[in-house]
């Protein structure tokens, strides 16, 4: 009997402590008026406006797209746009540091209103979230030594090998579309870089932003193929079904196109890394992708 008594006392104590933990720490100022949709929870445009703060998920360690500077301020191409969105909406902005793997979850659970974290538009992702109009192009690129520039993958010699980093879209694309090209695969960025410097391969294929940045930082290398393969775009994303916010962002992107906003964004944030030559290739203005 004594044992039973102990149990009966212990269980409610645990329950009470656990409840205390939950109550004490849960966000008491939680969002009011959160709307539940079939594919997620979100706040409509009016709810964001009346709350006075928009929550935007950005990268905090992807220089120069979204990063934190030495004064603790968020900066970068994505953040420059996010600041403007909040300003034109007339609300304050709260940045949430996101990781690539959790971007969709953040939207589907309404923990952020918008994701502006270098989010590439893909068909799989379209099933999960709603993308607004694009504001940047992304494609593959190929960099090679300046004295022997590779300008086309069709003119490679039989023994010419292309350097790739394992697991990147460049590897997938080349394997699928150029099965005859020999690939040299490296696990890390540093190893691939050394391989190119040692001329183990004739060229290095990677995201074009990466190869452009590489050629800018290293003398004697030229991006012979600045865009390769399918031209993907980077766009803001909102929770699926949040049409009021989506439409507002789309209108905003079109309006901003008239003042060449994303060109100004590029000049302010990306020019130091990519130079002026690639501005037209990377920037998408007014949501309209130029066909090239």
């Amino acid at each position: 009997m004594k044992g039973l008594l102990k149990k009966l006392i212990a269980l409610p104590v645990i329950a009470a402590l656990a409840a205390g933990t939950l109550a004490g720490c849960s966000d008491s100022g939680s969002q009011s008026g959160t709307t539940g949709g079939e594919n997620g929870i979100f706040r409509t445009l009016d709810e964001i406006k009346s709350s006075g703060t928009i929550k935007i998920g950005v990268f905090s360690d992807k220089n120069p797209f979204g990063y934190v500077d030495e004064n603790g301020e968020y900066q970068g191409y994505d953040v420059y746009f996010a600041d403007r969105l909040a300003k034109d909406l007339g609300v304050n902005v709260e940045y949430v540091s996101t990781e690539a793997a959790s971007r969709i979850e953040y939207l589907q659970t309404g923990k952020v209103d918008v994701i502006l974290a270098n989010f590439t538009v893909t068909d799989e992702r379209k099933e999960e979230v709603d993308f607004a109009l694009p504001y940047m192009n992304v494609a593959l690129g190929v960099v090679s030594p300046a004295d022997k520039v590779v300008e086309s993958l069709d003119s490679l010699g039989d023994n010419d090998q292309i350097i790739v980093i394992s697991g990147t879209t460049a590897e997938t694309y080349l394997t699928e579309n150029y099965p005859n090209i020999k690939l040299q695969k490296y696990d890390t960025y540093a190893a691939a870089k050394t391989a190119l410097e040692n001329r183990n391969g004739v060229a290095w294929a990677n995201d074009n932003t990466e190869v452009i940045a590489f050629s800018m930082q290293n003398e004697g290398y030229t991006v012979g193929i600045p865009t390769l393969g399918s031209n993907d775009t980077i766009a803001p994303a909102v929770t699926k079904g949040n049409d009021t916010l989506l439409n507002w962002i789309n209108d905003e992107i079109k309006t901003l196109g008239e003042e060449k906003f994303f060109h100004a964004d590029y000049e302010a944030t990306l020019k130091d890394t990519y130079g002026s030559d690639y501005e037209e290739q990377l920037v998408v203005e007014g949501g309209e992708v130029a066909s090239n």
Partner: protein
Amino acid sequence: MQALGIDALFRGSNFLRLLGGLGVTLELSLISVIFSILLGIIFGVIMTFKNPVVKVLSRIYLEIVRIMPQMVLLFVVFFGTTRLFGWNLSAEAACVIVFTFWGTAEMGDLVRGAVTAIPKHQYESSYALGMSKAQTYYHIIVPQTLRRLIPLSINLVTRMIKTTSLVMMIGVVEVLKVSQQIIEANRMTSPNGAFGIYAVVFLLYFIACWPISLLAGHLEKKWSN
């Protein structure tokens, strides 16, 4: 210093930000540790009960904690509770819940081990001396249990401090995330920053965990007499 990339730490308020990140790490882990120790002691005592239902339930709890990676638990608590129940836990609250959930199970198992390791003759001798059950626990059993527990639980506490680096995945900017931000923001000017700054982060973790080990050693010595 230039070669190690530590110079990036002295730009702007970078070093203060890193210390602020350490503060977040320590705050989250200390709150979780306090809850874990309190709840773990209770859970440990419960696990010593002979009731089969209690045994099975605590076994299931313990196995769930052991099998589930903390990363998964974090996602379940932070995102899952919003999906299922519409709760909007802050990221920090989700961390405290997950680490308390984990710490309570581990601490409970340590307590159970320490309690059952007390030889039966200790109880019997004390009853023979005419002590009541309460007196036996207060004077004989609990002091010996605590002494056995200290080294093991210190190990758990330092492990919890280190594991909080996972919380960056749900948006909490702690010391490791701040260091990654600093490395990335300065990758043009300090390309070797990763080495030097991670070395500093290593030192910070060491400074945070070392006093706890010292305290444990001190207590062990003090109580061994």
